[in-house]
């Protein structure tokens, strides 16, 4: 994660934020468990099979789905292929650089990917054109265009919304167009620890003073599908359990509001 541009967020400000949190208040007036306002526009990119533009507070991403015919992996001849890539565009933040994905963007992509994959959101067994020879390859590509914290959740929201709306052009293999076979709707909820408090959906300022990040992705039935603790810092087991409960609750709300 990029550092605060001015070096370090002043210790004074940090102390102030922590004291406010102890009273249950956040800088933008949210409660500790409250997500920022999210806006999702699907079909934002007509040329893609599915797409979504997501604003999560001031964080903005564009997710696009491409589906192409290709070879299956040798060890999974009867499955389609799902691949997720996240680009931290240099336009999104002063210190993001052009070039191949770095460890931060790879982590985001892999956590988003695990949520989709492990929830079995897409029925990849249904994406076989000719077993062992030709399958559908689903490319989930995400452009991060404006960064103000919590990319994992913004990207998961965008990827899931785009996949849900995706229509595959079957003409290249002489078939009819069809909707991607969607079976589940995973939602990730990310929290960070600031002082002794855990807050949901951190903005950039909160990320910068936090010590420890935890993401919990759940499926429609409230089961755990993927988790990722990230950044330095630590959690107690009780904190993790509490985070799981929060994720189930908040995730349910997000799913109802944005993905149904």
């Amino acid at each position, binding site marked *: 994660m990029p550092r605060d541009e001015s070096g370090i967020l002043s210790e004074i400000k940090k102390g102030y934020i922590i004291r406010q949190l102890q009273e249950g208040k956040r800088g933008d007036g949210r409660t500790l468990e409250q997500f920022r306002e999210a806006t999702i526009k699907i079909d*934002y*990119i*007509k*040329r*893609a099979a599915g*797409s979504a533009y997501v604003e999560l507070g*001031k964080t*903005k991403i*564009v997710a*696009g*789905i*491409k589906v*192409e015919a290709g070879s299956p992996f040798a060890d999974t001849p009867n499955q389609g292929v799902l691949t997720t*890539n996240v*680009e931290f*565009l*240099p*336009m*999104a*933040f*002063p210190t993001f650089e*052009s070039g*191949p*994905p770095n460890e931060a963007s790879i982590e985001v992509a892999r956590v988003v990917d695990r949520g989709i994959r492990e929830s079995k959101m897409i029925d990849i067994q249904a994406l076989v054109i000719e077993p062992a020879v030709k399958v559908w390859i689903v*490319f989930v*590509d995400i*452009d991060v*265009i*404006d*960064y*103000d914290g919590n990319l994992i959740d913004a990207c998961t929201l965008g990827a899931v919304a785009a996949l849900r709306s995706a229509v595959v052009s079957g003409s290249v293999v002489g078939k009819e167009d069809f909707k991607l076979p969607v079976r589940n709707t995973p939602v990730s909820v990310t929290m960070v620890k600031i002082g002794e408090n855990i807050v949901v959906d951190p903005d950039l300022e909160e990320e910068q003073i936090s010590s420890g990040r935890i993401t919990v992705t759940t499926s429609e039935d409230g089961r755990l599908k993927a988790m990722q603790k990230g950044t330095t810092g630590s959690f107690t087991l009780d904190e993790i359990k509490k985070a799981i409960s929060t994720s189930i609750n908040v995730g349910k709300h997000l799913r109802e509001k944005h993905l149904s």
Partner: protein
Amino acid sequence: MGTQSDIKLIEENGLRLDGRNPGDLRPIKIEAGVLNRADGSALIEWGGNKVLVSVYGPREAYPKHNQDINKAIVKARYNMAAFSVDERKRPGPDRRSIEISKVLSEALESAIMVEQFPRAQIDVFIEVLQADAGTRIAGLTAAAVAIADAGIPMRDFVTGCTAGKVNDKVVLDLSKEEDNFGQADLPIAILPKSKKIVLLQMDGDLSLEEFDTATSMIINAISRINEIQRNALSAKVKVDDAGGE
């Protein structure tokens, strides 16, 4: 240019497949200040193109041995999103986007008052979200708005437009089919006040007369496009005055 010039791109009534007259532009819409983090930004929708531009700077050029003691370096980076074209575009720069980034950087540097910012760098990131012929010109036209939005002083705007030839006829602002199956493509960018040309590329086949017709069409269109650019900025200013963000 495409090799199949026998495809019918102009109807008997003289109209193009999308109903335009030869000298018509596609719809153009520009919004300034669409991003929070960048120093300046703009989103342009031009026909089916959707191109996002953000600007950072002037900031200290890095690495230092690249600094120019007399002026700012302008570094435009043109990039196509993986989902912007029919066949997924593999991430990362290819030879085409490297060339485009070079000519866009040079065109913008010709307009920016770079001599006011020695040792600095101005980064212009151009992301093609959806491509529909004429992306470099759409990106450049939006870039000028984003640079102005960033408060970076320019001698003049930079405004671009494309002309081309289809079915032996010169037309303005090629569509995707016209670009794929046409006979010539001529993207030009102009400083609208002085009418100086800062970007010009051409490929295909044109006679001198056809070149004259094409450039007349472009120069005619430039003032309309520049108005859209200026409107985008004043709309932004109004929003800012009204206490936006």
